[in-house]
Each structure stands twice: as structure tokens, then as C-alpha cells.
């Protein structure tokens, strides 16, 4: 079931009280502007801070400005997910981890549980940098050539239309993996009788099948198809860096089989920009 990026639906930002957690807020605020959404902040702790303690901790009003605060006691992930469901949130924006860096760039346990079971798309933000000046100009959409993956195009389009951004669709040909078996998948052709016709024809067909999920005129005017080779995660990260992507928007099949899990983990660990994960 595709999770849609609903406009006007609240954007949820979990804050655990750390400075790092607030980095996600800058991204959330820009998205809220674009989508016309409200910000809801959820704070969960064994002993939650009181409103007075919140105000004392963050003298900077920007943190809580125009935000609705939810304070909960108990398990952080469970409570974040509960608020997301209760408030029918459209996106959860959160840091991959707070506090000390995790080995091999892994996510914190809370973020890990939230993104796996969230009822809406999740944007993960690395705490390596602040995003105060974050703008959405270029969205990178990795696409594994399957119809399921193509479902991410429509919600991503909503975002980029509002931001006036452009979209790069990246397909990575992974030599080490068998081609996708999903019916309707359009991996690069097995037969290239004459390269001058086969490759452009493949690119056209790839976009046509993608266009089925949105509309062709918009697609051809706003989307650039890029083909990469090698490890999918590394190709996505490299392309994101080379093309100054502001957001990587991924369709996720919701399974964590070893191959997909490794790709996703690697992208989460090293993404140079916020990473939007939409379960399809």
C-alpha cells in the first residue's frame, strides 16, 4: 500500500531534548511551508520535561515557533508512532540518531523502529550538519525499474511542484544482482542490437512506464533519467553528491531482505542530504 505525501497533513518531528534532534526541524519547517502543513513536535522520555523546562532549554523561540507540542512518557518509538497515527501525520522528520555517532553510521534504535513501521513517509536527517538554509531544488529518485518503485513518483511530484524543484530519476544497473523479476519491470535491455536505437528506446520506455503513475507531459518536462552502474547504494550517494541533491526520495518495498536492507542501511548511513523513505 503506497503511503502518500498528503498536503496539509501535519509534519511530525520527534525531539529527545538533544541539540542534534533539532536539526530535523529546519527541514520540517521548509516542508511545512511547501505543503501548507503544521508542525507537531513530540517529546518522549521516562521523565518528560515540563513546558517550563522546554522554554528554559530552548530560549530560541524558533524551535517551538508555530509548533504543537506533544509530551509523552514511555517508550519513545511507540509513542512517536502513536502520535503520528493519532494526528494523521503526513511525514515524520527525524534525525537518524542523536548523541554519539553510531558504529558504521547506523541508526539509533528509535529512528530504526519508527522508519520500519511508520504509518506515513519518513524523512531521515543525518546529524552531521545543520539544515538551517535547506532548500528543495533537486530531488533524486532512485528507481529499481519495478512498477512498485515507480509508485514513488506521484508523491515526489507533489513536493517538487510546490518547491519548483527538478527531479532526477536514477536507475542503477547492479551487475552483481539478477534483474528484477516483478512483472512490468523495465531493467536495461538484455539485447542491444544497435546501441544508438536500443538505449534511447529503453530510456523512453522507462519514462513512459513511470509516466503512467503521473502524466507524460509533466514527466518529460521535469524529469531527467540517469543510468548508473555498480553498487546501488554507492551510485545513489555518488549521484546525490555530484548533482547536489537536496533530497533523496526512495520507494521502499517494506522488506528488509539482505540485499535491500544493505542498500538502505548504506544510504541511511552516508546520505549527504535528507532521505525520504516512502513505503510502497
Amino acid at each position, binding site marked *: 500500500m503506497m503511503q502518500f505525501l498528503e498536503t496539509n497533513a501535519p509534519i511530525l518531528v520527534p525531539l529527545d531534548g538533544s541539540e542534534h534532534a533539532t536539526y530535523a526541524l529546519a527541514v520540517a519547517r521548509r516542508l511545512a511551508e511547501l505543503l501548507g502543513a503544521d508542525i507537531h513536535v513530540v517529546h518522549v522520555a521516562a521523565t518528560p520535561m515540563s513546558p517550563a523546562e522546554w522554554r528554559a532549554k530552548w530560549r530560541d523561540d524558533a524551535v517551538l515557533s508555530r509548533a504543537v507540542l506533544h509530551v509523552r512518557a514511555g517508550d519513545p518509538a511507540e509513542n512517536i508512532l502513536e502520535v503520528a497515527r493519532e494526528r494523521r501525520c503526513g511525514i515524520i522528520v527525524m534525525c537518524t540518531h542523536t548523541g554519539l555517532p553510531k558504529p558504521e553510521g547506523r541508526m539509533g534504535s528509535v529512528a530504526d523502529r519508527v522508519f520500519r513501521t511508520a504509518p506515513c513517509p519518513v524523512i531521515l536527517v543525518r546529524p552531521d550538519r545543520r539544515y538551517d538554509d535547506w532548500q528543495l531544488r533537486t530531488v533524486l529518485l532512485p528507481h529499481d525499474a519495478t512498477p512498485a518503485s515507480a509508485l514513488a513518483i506521484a508523491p515526489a511530484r507533489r513536493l517538487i511542484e510546490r518547491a519548483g524543484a527538478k527531479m532526477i530519476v536514477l536507475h542503477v544497473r547492479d551487475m552483481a544482482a539478477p534483474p528484477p523479476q516483478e*512483472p512490468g519491470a523495465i531493467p536495461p*535491455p538484455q539485447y542491444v542490437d544497435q*546501441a544508438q*536505437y536500443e*538505449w534511447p528506446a*529503453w530510456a523512453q520506455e522507462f519514462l513512459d512506464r513511470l509516466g503512467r503513475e503521473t502524466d507524460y507531459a509533466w514527466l518529460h518536462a521535469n524529469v531527467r533519467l540517469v*543510468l548508473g552502474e555498480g553498487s546501488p547504494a554507492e551510485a545513489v550517494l555518488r549521484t546525490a553528491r555530484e548533482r547536489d541533491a537536496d533530497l533523496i526520495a526512495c520507494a521502499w518495498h517494506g522488506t528488509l531482505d539482505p540485499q535491500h536492507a544493505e542498500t538502505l542501511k548504506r544510504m541511511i548511513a552516508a546520505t549527504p542530504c535528507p532521505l525520504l523513505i516512502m513505503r510502497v
Partner: protein
Amino acid sequence: MQTAAHPPFRVMPTGDERWLIRETGFSQDREHDLESIFTVSNGRFGVRGSIAEGSPLSHPATYAAGFFRSDGAHGRQAVTLPNVALLRATADGLPFSLSTGRILQHERVLDLRQGLLWRRWVHETSDGRIAFILGVRGASITDPSLLFQGCYLECHNFTGDLLVEAGIERLPLDGATRMDVFEDREQGIAGVSLFYSPPGKSAGLAESAKIVGAAGAIAPSEFIESEGGFHRRWKLTARVGDALRFERLTTVSVTGAGQAPAREAAPAAAAAAARGFDDALARHAEEWARRWSRADIQIEGDDDAQRKLRFAIYHLLSAAPVDEGVSIGARALTGEGYRGHVFWDTEIFVLPFYLLVDPGAARRLLTFRWNGLDAARRRAHDLGYAGALFPWEAADRHTDETPEYFVSPTGEIVPIFSGRQEHHISAGVAWAVWRYWQATHDVDFLLTAGCEILFETARFWASRGRFEPDGRYHIAGVMGPDEYHSNVTDDAYTNHMARWNLARAAEAAEWLAGQNLARARDLYRRCRLSTGVVAEWRAKARQMADGFLPGNLLLEQFRGYSKIAGGVTVGSAPPPPLTGRKETDPWIKQAAVVLLFQLLPRDYSDDVVAANLAYYAPRTAHASSLSPSTYALVAGRLGERALARRFFMQAADIDLSSRAGNASGGVHIAGMGGLCQATLFGFAGLQTEDGGLSFRPHLPEGWSGLRFQVQWQQRRVAVQIRENGNLLDAELVEGEDISVSLAGGPTVRLGSQAGRRRELRPFAQESPMRPA
């Protein structure tokens, strides 16, 4: 209205699954692929198998053989003619559409036996109105200008207003510079004229369309002209159980350059309508049955392979040109892929099938090359050579249409070397001429066109290479069928085919010199032949560097290949590259040396074939749709039964599999020709010779028998291979005596004296052939 007579059409769908390609349900995932697969074509026109009412991914184009337009700097482009099968219906304002309401049943069935595309559809509109729909369409093979489409609709559970809409509609960016629409209400004919650049190119489409209920024909109530063409509308009141039948007969003309081509096409549409829809349908189905009686290859023991082989034969029969001077593009008339251009594939992979079932079609293909001989001479001259060099990519003007470069999906500009270096195409055309001559003894063709093609291509090869100090004749700066390596010297495929071309031209010149006909003498003079010229061709053929590595049976693919040939891991062939490959890469794109064993089977002994197959198989990426069938053929010849079947199925799945992913621009017609060749020349072990046929069957794993007919030198022989290849039943069906042998056993005669039918069993182990 009341219920129309049953069954809905005089011809109804075939019931045997071995004759059907079926797609059940509806998903747009592969719609472009399916449109290609389901194309109906008659060699003059092709209509893609699109959903009649359209879908967001539909590309319902029509194509005409040999009909190109200018596309500015991009050269010649096959014209995309309008959608001639547009048909929509609504019940009380709600559409019968796959994207609304509920699909209760939906399937499209390509009926290979009858050359028809069927569509069975039971649909419930969003307010619960259910209709049973049976659609049929075809491209008439009894009247090649005629396309027909029928649709039977039965109101299952509703009474109300039906609106039916049909028309001819152009596709976006079709390149037409002007359009005229006309309607002749009295005749019930309407049409569209389209004009293209350069001026003088035009197409006319005219249709008779009517709806018939139990009370007779119902006239359309509206005619609407639009920017894209026209629509006719029928407004009807239907009751539960009522049935109606939509009948459309469309004629297309692209030959005239008149001012109103649609009006010129109209009388034929009116005449077809007067004969009736069922008449067109029935005559078409009868003619398909007749064609299949000569062209079918029946496989015993493997229904999956049978269905796929018939799918290939269906498209080959559908593609066979009916007009002189047109050829078959890489995707036939099933899509716009390859811009409709004609490559070497047509002569090497497609034409041999026609030689055995429809030699007239083979002659028409060669006439296309004959028409291009002057352009080929100019091309050779412009490059500094003598004779004729045929274009790598040909369209209607016979100039080379190969682009210099293309932009890859990674954004890189990639140079294209095939147009500049794949000169082997000239030998391929000569090979096809010679094979046609052997198959038909068509002296008229040889004197009109064939000899001159042989001589001019030989002249090209005589100027293309040079003698080097080793005393051998070498050809440098070419690319063979292996397009992973460019600018090579002594490409084995090119050299061997050039050698063969020179030798056959010399043979033809000597034959010509021996003819007493004035026409022959004129030709000899006109072609500037002499004993000196013939001696030169023979010498260069004799001294051609053949690439045999010293001390073994291996043919080196090109000079120096053996030095880079190591370093491959078996089974790790890389996928097709995006931007070309390093010249030092050992991987070979497709069968190249191994293809020689398909084309010139008598020139190589089995031990040479076996050694080279074993050497090149692990180094070949099969990144061309032409490659698997060649490997199937050669593996079959050697009796590698498991390997043969694996490659056969790989070739058979090129378009039908959802994983190859590139049938959207049309089917791979050459791969289909290769599949038939693999079956006949590889598995049946058919070898043709003057006055006879020999067989050395090696059936693939799981196949117990084969049945087919072979047309050879004005004779037709029905062949049955049974008992896993140990019994051959041959019957002379047509023509004079012919000799037949099985597996090196004694030759027997079939004919009036000896009896027209004989059973043969292998006599003894045959002796292996040695290299020429």
C-alpha cells in the same frame, strides 16, 4: 434492437493453445510490448495490437512497408500512420473502459493459425451495467490494402442508451504537414489524407464503418471532424439481451502522390464493404490456413516450444513483403524501433526462411537491394573503393542512415562505428542472392539483378583489402558482427564472407560467360567482366587471410584477438555496455565466427565447428537478439541437445518474455528468422544441394519429432522426422523428382518413377566433413 445471430462472427477463435498467444487480465505494465507482440500485419501494413478504446500507455500506430519521411537532420524515419482501430462505447454515459468500473473478464488472444487478434471482455460499468464484448481485427492477406476490425457487443443486464464512437485518429508528432478529412455519407465512407515532407509523400486512409443490429445496419448519427482526424457516433437504444456488431473495413494507400489519397482509397473500401465483413474475415482465415500448410513447423513433445516457434513464423509470414522494392526493417511493421531501417539481419536471418516457404518474398527483398545498387556504388566510390558497398542502415533512398553518434542514458556522447566499418553487409547481400539462386534457379532474376550484385560486391572486396608481405590478402579497419571491437584487421567473419563473395562472383561470371543468351552477353560486357577480372577475384579469394591459428582448429576472431581472449570467467558475461567497450576486452558481443558455420555449413568440418563453439561460447555475451538462435543452430548441428534447447528457448523468449524489456518498439523479426533456421538447419540438420535435400537430425532435449515442408527448386517436400531423429518420412508434394538422404545414408529419389513417399533410416555413421 434484438439479439443478433450467433455466433458473433463467421470465423471464431482457434481453440488449440499451441496456436495462441494469450494475455489474460489487464495491467499496463507491458502494454507497449504487448502492442508489438499482438500486431496484425500483411507485409504491406501493420497495425499494433493496442486496446481499441485506448489507455494512457497506448500507442496505436499503423505502419506501411517502405514508407518513410524525412526527419530533418535525423534522416529517414518510417511514417507513423494514424490509429485505424479507435472504438469506444458508453452505456447511459458511463464508459466501457478498463480504468473504470469492474473488469469481469478480459483477455487478448493472438490467433496465430488464422492471423487474427481477438479480445474477449466482460465489463461492468461503475453503475453495474454489464456487456459482453468480442473484438477481432486483422490485416487482410487476400487484399493487402485492407484492414478489418469487428466488435460484437451484447447488453447483458441493462436497457438504455448506447453511444458508440469510432474513427481515424492521428498520433502526436506523426510528422504530417497537412491533413484533409472527407466524408461520403451516401457510401458510408470517410477518410483522412495526410501529407508529409518532402512534398509528394502522402497517405490516404478510407474506412467503411457500420453497426448492424438484428434489424439491419444503423447509420451513424454524427460525424465530427477534429484536429486529429474524425469520429463517427452512433446513438442507439438497447434492451437487455440486445446485441450489435460493429464492422469496419479500412483501406490504406501510400503509393500515390495525388492530392486526395483518401478519396483514391475510398472505392476499395466501398467494394470491400459491398462484399461484406464476414467475407473479408473468412477469406483471410482461409488464406492463413493455406500459408500454414506450407510454413508450419510442428514439434512433437514440446508444446511450449511449439507455440513460441509458431509465434515467430506468424510474424515472419506477416512481414513478408507483397510489393516489389520494399524490405523488412529490424522491427518489421510492429513498431517504430530502429526508425524502420533495414539492416543485414534481413538477408542473413529472415530471408532464408522465405527461401523455403515463399521464394517470391525473398526475391522482393533482394529487389530492394537491387534498387539500391547505384547508391551502394556511390557509397563505395565516396569511400575510395570500387564496386558496391550497401548501407549499414537503409531506408527508402538506400543511402546510409546510420547516425555518427548517440547520447547515452548516462549523458555521454557515444560514437557509432557500425555505419563506417560494418562492411560485411555487402557480402551478406551477395550471400542472400546466391542462396536465392540456388533455391529457385531463377535465371531471370540472376540476369536482371543477381549477377550484378554479386559482381559489384566482389569488386568492392577486391578493392577493400591489400596483399601484404606474407602473400595473403588482408582487410583492415572493419568491424564484424562483434560490435564490441572496432577497427580490427582480418575480422574472421568479414574475411570469410568476402572470400566466399569473391569466389561466388567468379563462379557466376564463368556461368554467365557460358550462356548463349544475348541478354547474358550484354550483361557480361556491361559489367566489364573479363577472364583477368575473374582471375583476380579467384586469387584474392584464395589468398584471403583466413585467421586459422597455426597448429589448431581455431579461427581467430580478428588479428590479435587470441592475445586478449583470456581473462573471462565462464558464465559472467557482462550486460550490454552503455558507452562501448574497451578494445582490449575479451568479451564478444554476439556469434561472429560461429555465425560462419550457420551461413557456410559445408565449408567447415565438425571438428572445426566443435572447437570454435567450445572456444567462443564462454566468451560470447549474447547481447544481440541474433546470437542465441545461431548458437542453437550450431549446437544442434553438433548434437549438443541440452545446449541447443537452452539457446532455442532463449531466442524464443526474446519478445515474449517480460524480462528482456525491449519489445516496446517492435518485435525482433531477425531473431524469429534465426529461430526457424535453428530448427530447420540445426535440429533437422537440413542441407540443401542441387536437386536434393539431406538431413542429419539432432533434436533438442525433450523433442521427439518434427514435421514441416520445404520448397526447393520448384519442388515441395513434406518431411516428418520421428523416433528422435532415427526415421525420416519424406513425401514429394509438388514438382519433379528430388533426391533425399538421412544422416549420410544412401540417397533416395522421390518422384513419379520411384514413388513420391519414402521412409529413410540412418544407414551408417557418416564421414565428417573437412574444411574447404
